[in-house]
Every structure is written in structure tokens, then in C-alpha cells.
């Protein structure tokens, strides 16, 4: 009697495919915001420990990206923007992505807990779990509020960076969380305005697909009107100097001006594309200015004096 054993075709996935699975561009933003959270913390962290923490956060972000691509392979295949990703392109099997993502997630959390501190590791685990379980599996295909609530996962890295340095949280990283959290909807809705057909084809209920372009443009303006003052908050609360404050006011003003143009745009997506592009620059600028401000060593006086920290 012969027995036929079914087996998967041996993989041809290269190292580059696995790197792509980790969403390196998203990862770079995660590492940068986490780095700022870590640098702003009021304690000195040994460079080796800081590097270890950032490496774990980067790998954890990569794990979340891989698990997202594992679960979303079906809708990625139906969208022009994502059809060339390793799984829909046929270069990598879903099972490989799942195994890779789970392995990275486990290693990143355990190593961060063993070498840095357990609280930061718990936060990293929550972030990965939230991005995969709450955003990817639950919200993304269910509600147009998907990126509003799911944005919390992308907003947590500066809090993890702070927690890696101090072992706790305080108002400062929570304000950074709020900035990224409020930045996420206008950023992604600007993109989804001119990618609405793509999302509709994939069955993803993004706001323009469900509520239409006009409502999306209104919501972009509303969120931006809240985001701009929150972006100035680190200066108003006294843990960033005037240099940051001026940059945040100017960049926030530019964001509002763009959001007004998006709101007024009757046809075409020129303003939406500009808003999407500038929103990336806006977030980068705010966090970069926090770093510059810190490196300036307090020569640019904060508005109210420094807050007591919760470290």
C-alpha cells in the first residue's frame, strides 16, 4: 500500500521578501518616534541598552507588519497599491509569513523584557496584539473607524521608547501618543480619497467608500483642526522649547491650510495628494524638532518651565 503525502512546494522566498514583509518604511517611522520617546525621557540610558530597546521595537514592528500581510493577503491581492507584496505576488506562502511574524513577535517581546525592562516589553506586546488583533483582524474590514481606533498601535512606539528608558509612563510620552493618534486619520484618509476605488474593490470600508468623498474631506479638516494645537502641546506643557513651538505652530498652520484646500477641492485629488505627502513631513518635523530642542540643551526656554516627570 502506498501513501501519498501532500507537501507544500519548497519556498523560493529570498531574504529581501522577508524584509519587505516587515514593512521597512513603517518600521523606520516607528523606530524614529520610539527613539524620540527614549531621548526625551529624563534618565540617561546606556547606548547599548538604547540600541537594544530600539532593535526590539523595530523587530516588533516588523512582526506586526508580517502578521498584517499574512492576514490581509486576500485583500492585498485586489489592491493595486499592495498587489506586488510578497504573498499576493506568489513569492512567499502565507504560512511562512505567519511563522515569521510569530517568531519575530515572540523574540522581540522576550528579549526586550529580559534585557531592558518588563513594562516596555508588555507595551510592545500590547502594540503588536492591538495592530494585528484589533486593527487588522477586527476593525479593518468592519468599520470606517478602522484607522481611527487602529491608529493607537502606531501611536504607541514613543511611549514604549520612554518606558524602555524609565520603566514607566508620564504625560510627555502620552502627548506624543496623542499627536500620532490624531495625525493618523487625516494622513490615511487623504490617501484613501484618491485610492477609494482600490479600497472598494478590496471590500475595505474606508471612510470615502462608506461615507463618500465630501464627508471624508470634512473629517480630514476636523481632525487637523484638533491635531494642530495638540502638536504645539509639548511646548505649551513646558517640555519643549520655543524652537519646537515655532516649528509646530508653522507646520500645524500648513496642515490646516492644506486640509482647507482638501475640503474645498470639488474634483480631482491634487490637494489630497499634497496633504498625504505633507502629513508625513509634518510628523517627521515635529519629532525631529523635539530631538533638536533636546540637543539644544534647554537654550530655547520652554513656555511654563519643565513638568515634573513620572519616571
Amino acid at each position, binding site marked *: 500500500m502506498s501513501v501519498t503525502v501532500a507537501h507544500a512546494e*519548497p*519556498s523560493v*522566498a529570498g*531574504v529581501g521578501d522577508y524584509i519587505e514583509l516587515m514593512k521597512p518604511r513603517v518600521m523606520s517611522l516607528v523606530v524614529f518616534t520610539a527613539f524620540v520617546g527614549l531621548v526625551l525621557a529624563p534618565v540617561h540610558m*546606556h547606548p*547599548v*541598552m538604547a540600541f*537594544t530597546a530600539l532593535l526590539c521595537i523595530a523587530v516588533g514592528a516588523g512582526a506586526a507588519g508580517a502578521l498584517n500581510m499574512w492576514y490581509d493577503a486576500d485583500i492585498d491581492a485586489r489592491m493595486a497599491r499592495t498587489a506586488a507584496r510578497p504573498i499576493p505576488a506568489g513569492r512567499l506562502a502565507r504560512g511562512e509569513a505567519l511563522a515569521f511574524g510569530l517568531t519575530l513577535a515572540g523574540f522581540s517581546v522576550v528579549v526586550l523584557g*529580559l534585557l531592558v*525592562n518588563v513594562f516596555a516589553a508588555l507595551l510592545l506586546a500590547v502594540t503588536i496584539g492591538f495592530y494585528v488583533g484589533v486593527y487588522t483582524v477586527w476593525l479593518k474590514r468592519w468599520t470606517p473607524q478602522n484607522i481611527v481606533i487602529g491608529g493607537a498601535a502606531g501611536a504607541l512606539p514613543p511611549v514604549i521608547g520612554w518606558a524602555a528608558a524609565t520603566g514607566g509612563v508620564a504625560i510627555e510620552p502620552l502627548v506624543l501618543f496623542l499627536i500620532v493618534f490624531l495625525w493618523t486619520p487625516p494622513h490615511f484618509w487623504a490617501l484613501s480619497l484618491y485610492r477609494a476605488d482600490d479600497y472598494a474593490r478590496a471590500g475595505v470600508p474606508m471612510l470615502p467608500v462608506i461615507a463618500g468623498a465630501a464627508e471624508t474631506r470634512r473629517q480630514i479638516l476636523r481632525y487637523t483642526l484638533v491635531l494642530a494645537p495638540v502638536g504645539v502641546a509639548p511646548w505649551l506643557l513646558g517640555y519643549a522649547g520655543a524652537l519646537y513651538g515655532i516649528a509646530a505652530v508653522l507646520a500645524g498652520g500648513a496642515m490646516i491650510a492644506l486640509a482647507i484646500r482638501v475640503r474645498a477641492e470639488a474634483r480631482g485629488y491634487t490637494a489630497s495628494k499634497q496633504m498625504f505627502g505633507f502629513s508625513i513631513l509634518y510628523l517627521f518635523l515635529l519629532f525631529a524638532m523635539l530631538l533638536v530642542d533636546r540637543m539644544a540643551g534647554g537654550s530655547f526656554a520652554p513656555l511654563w518651565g519643565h513638568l515634573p516627570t513620572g519616571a
Partner: protein
Amino acid sequence: MSEHNTDPTPEPGIRLTEQQRRARRARSIAIAISLAVLAVLFYIVTLVKGPGVLERPL
């Protein structure tokens, strides 16, 4: 006397193509490098923290 067979019987199992073999080798090297980095990282952190490496505050 039976005739000697010069063709070796193919071994059962999966035969990798050249592309699959190259991809597997590249993945194996990447895993080896990752594990080496992890080992070195644990070593250096132990040097940096000294006996404190056993303390893991929540």
C-alpha cells in the same frame, strides 16, 4: 549474473531546483547572522549591566 545498473535510483523526497536551493541558502545565512547578533547582544548587555543583568524591574 545480473547486469549492473549505472543509473542510481533517485532518492525519494523533494528535489530542490537551483533557485530553491539558492533561496534556502540565503535564508539559512540570514538566520545564522540573526542568531549570532542575538548571542553577541546578550554578551555585550551582560558586560554593560554586570550583575544587574539579573534584575528585571517591572
